[in-house]
């Protein structure tokens, strides 16, 4: 069970547009608002995304110092991966140790990406969700950027856990092919993030369930993605669900890379992981649009929980 640390108490983003001044009011000046051109809309979208990312980085700086991240969070991640890897020792099966260590290290990135469900609801708690829905730029753009702190932390945690603990537990790493695991973990982070954004759209309606949804999500993805046991262990229909979830293809690619397998297989797995992530990104965008439209229609986007 894991809950993301809160970044409560952080200062809001700077206001970019000044309200009309008293002189404007006295002179009868009324600015005319014209819809911006396509290039302007694209620029505004990227600007909103940039500010959302900056907000996420500010959150990261509030949540962790380098000391609390290293000696707190990273230490916990290492213990979590070691906890599962040691089960292989209990089973007296070195192959199981290898399997569990790689799976448990890589799933860390999905676990942290699932924190998106919680951090997205912070906007509702802060009362900024109605403002985001009312803004000309769609709220989805903001939510895509506002939780990237988990991508940064998760990618670093998973890679460190994998490459530090593997030698300790005697897991063979076939260098240089094993280094392909690093970009694959980045891809898993992105696809898991896209999937978690979809769930965030639902959790924004019921923020009380934010941590429960996040935890169930990453555990289920891990179970169906081959983290603890190969996907063939489950009945066929269960395995089929895993095919369209994040992590599965990327993790398979990581296992091939660490074993020094063929580059073509690694690239195929990477491609499938990108396709899965892109698919969930589109679905998440639609879910956010529905959230915003439904909220405007019914007036259900209120402040707080």
């Amino acid at each position, binding site marked *: *069970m*894991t*809950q*993301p*640390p*809160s970044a409560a108490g952080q200062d809001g983003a700077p206001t970019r547009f000044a309200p009309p001044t008293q002189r404007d009011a006295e002179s009868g000046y009324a600015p005319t608002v014209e819809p911006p051109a396509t290039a302007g809309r694209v620029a505004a979208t990227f600007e909103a995304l940039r500010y959302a990312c900056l907000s996420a980085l500010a959150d990261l700086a509030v*949540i*962790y110092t380098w000391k*609390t991240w290293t000696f*707190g*969070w990273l*230490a*916990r991640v290492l*213990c*979590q991966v*070691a*906890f599962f890897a*040691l*089960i292989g*020792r*209990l*089973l007296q*099966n070195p192959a*199981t140790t290898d399997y*569990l260590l790689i799976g448990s290290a890589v799933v860390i990135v999905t676990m942290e990406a699932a924190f998106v469900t919680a951090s997205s609801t912070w906007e509702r708690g802060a009362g900024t969700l109605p403002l985001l829905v009312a803004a000309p730029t769609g709220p989805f753009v903001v939510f895509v950027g506002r939780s990237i702190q988990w991508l940064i932390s998760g990618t670093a945690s998973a890679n460190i856990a994998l490459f530090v603990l593997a030698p300790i537990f005697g897991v063979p790493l076939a260098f240089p092919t094993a280094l392909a695991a690093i970009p694959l973990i980045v891809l898993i982070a992105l696809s898991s993030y896209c999937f978690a954004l979809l769930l965030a759209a639902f959790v924004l309606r019921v923020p*009380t*369930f*934010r*941590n*429960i949804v996040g*935890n*169930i999500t990453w*555990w*289920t993805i*891990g*179970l169906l993605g081959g983290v*603890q*046991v*190969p996907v063939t*262990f489950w009945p066929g229909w269960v395995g089929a669900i895993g095919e369209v979830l994040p992590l599965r293809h990327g993790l398979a690619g990581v296992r091939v890379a660490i074993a020094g397998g063929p580059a073509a297989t690694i690239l195929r797995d990477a491609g499938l992981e990108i396709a899965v992530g892109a698919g969930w990104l589109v679905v998440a965008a639609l879910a956010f649009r529905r959230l915003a439209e439904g909220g405007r229609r019914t007036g259900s986007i209120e402040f707080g929980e």
Partner: protein
Amino acid sequence: MTSMDLRDGRTLRLPWPRHTGFVAGARLQLAIFRRGWDSLLALVTVPLFTIAFLAITRHAGRTDLTAYAVLAPAVVAVIGMAILTSGEVVTQDRSNGSLELALAAPSRFPIVVVGRVLVVTLVSLVAVVEAWLVAWIVFGVRVPVPHRTAFAGALAVATLATVGTALLMSSVFVAARSARTFQNTISYPLYLLGGAFVPVPLLPGFLHPLCRAVYLSWATDLLRDCLATKPVPDFWPRLGAVAGLGAVGFAAGYAILIRVVDRARATGRVGHE
């Protein structure tokens, strides 16, 4: 007995379980549980832990370790709730702005907290039933308990020891600035050192002394032995170790909480520091 009459006619109130503050704390915690699911997060993840652990042992063909795989999720959930829910008891009061009122009330605040963490720990025992049920429903596995009385006794003492640890956590977390970071940090180290799944002898040797200082390592070993068919060796001394370490945790937690409360009163910084 909740009070005793002194010779000068005054009545000395004792911190006994029937104390009003204790009951109020217990009732408050029950009301919080009824209000939201978030404080039951540890129980929600029990089925997933159980499925994962059973899948690992069954895939490896080690059905002899089924009892380990079913007990571990329960242990993880009990400790998880001690960390996540009990650990936040005082911190939540502080962020809700109710800590000032709780400290100003006639009841001793640590007694209220003891009532709350006891309820949290008792509710967390649902995880034991949950894990056994998930094993049966999902994998069709029934885990027998050959030493039922010993298992019940060990579980009861382990529960009381967990109350002590939970009290310690709530005290330490309130003294720390970021409770959530602390909570996230200590969970897996505790599962590891407490031998939640893998017994202590299988951990690296340099960790053994540290593991034996954690009541959980004694408790999990004892509970696992109660699930085996052979006689439970050294039952009473091991049960005593669980009780003793649990009592040390309780005393430390109680003392730290009193100190935190006294400091907050003295500095006038009861609310947000």
